């Protein structure tokens, strides 16, 4: 699983942070076409956005979010040189993170 992050200047000030996480986001309602068994739910639950190590926002997701979630937020009080990081955990306890410095 990989996580990518992009930062651009926001339309209404601040910085837009865009995160693309590779994740299947299984609903738990789908059947495996070969075996006929239900595929267990597997989805990202919480994504934490931090600036210089301080959390600024938490996105809570469930199985209603598309596979490979693309999540964007705006951080208005960040400045160049700040480090923005994101980390996520899913319902199976897997996790990943990414980090970018604002230039």
């Amino acid at each position, binding site marked *: 699983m990989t996580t990518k992050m992009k930062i651009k200047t926001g339309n209404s000030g601040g910085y837009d942070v865009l995160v693309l996480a590779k994740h299947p986001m299984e609903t738990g309602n789908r059947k495996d076409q070969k075996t006929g068994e239900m595929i267990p739910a597997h989805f990202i639950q919480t994504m934490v956005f931090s600036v210089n190590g301080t959390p600024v926002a938490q996105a*809570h997701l469930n199985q*209603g979010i*598309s596979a490979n979630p693309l999540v964007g937020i705006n951080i208005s009080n960040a400045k160049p040189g700040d480090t923005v990081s994101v980390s996520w955990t899913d319902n199976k306890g897997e996790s990943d993170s990414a980090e970018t410095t604002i230039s």
Partner: protein
Amino acid sequence: MKRRTFIKGSMASAALAVAAGAGLLKPTRVLAADWPEAALSADQVDAAMQAAFGSGDVTDSGDVQIKAPLQAENGAVVPIQVTTSVKADKIAIISEKNPIPMVTVLDAGDGAGGLYSIRIKMGETSPVHCVVSSGGKLLRATQEIKVTVGGCGG
């Protein structure tokens, strides 16, 4: 005869123990800390609103804008973007006719919360509500999104 049934029974329970050990019988939902389970697994809009905001008293407001397609060709990927001019501390997106209507909640701290964009799954044509909580008030914007191919099931 007794010995035979005993061996059979013990073999079955051993197989069960192996299955449990391999994680086959584990509950599928292991909670992360502070994930709002009640809101994000409720199957009714009202129950989800109560769980997420503690109130179902919302007003439609022009301070919340939704940018989303009027018609989604593929219900598995419907991009939704919420922008607001008020200081938001929570943003929730609700697709009314989904099996679990509330699909995401953003807890925004200082400096965040002006924008939230995400791609959601939609099973069928339905109104999508974006609810923003700001200083104890709940503001809402709604847009009907037509879905031609559903995003649930496979």
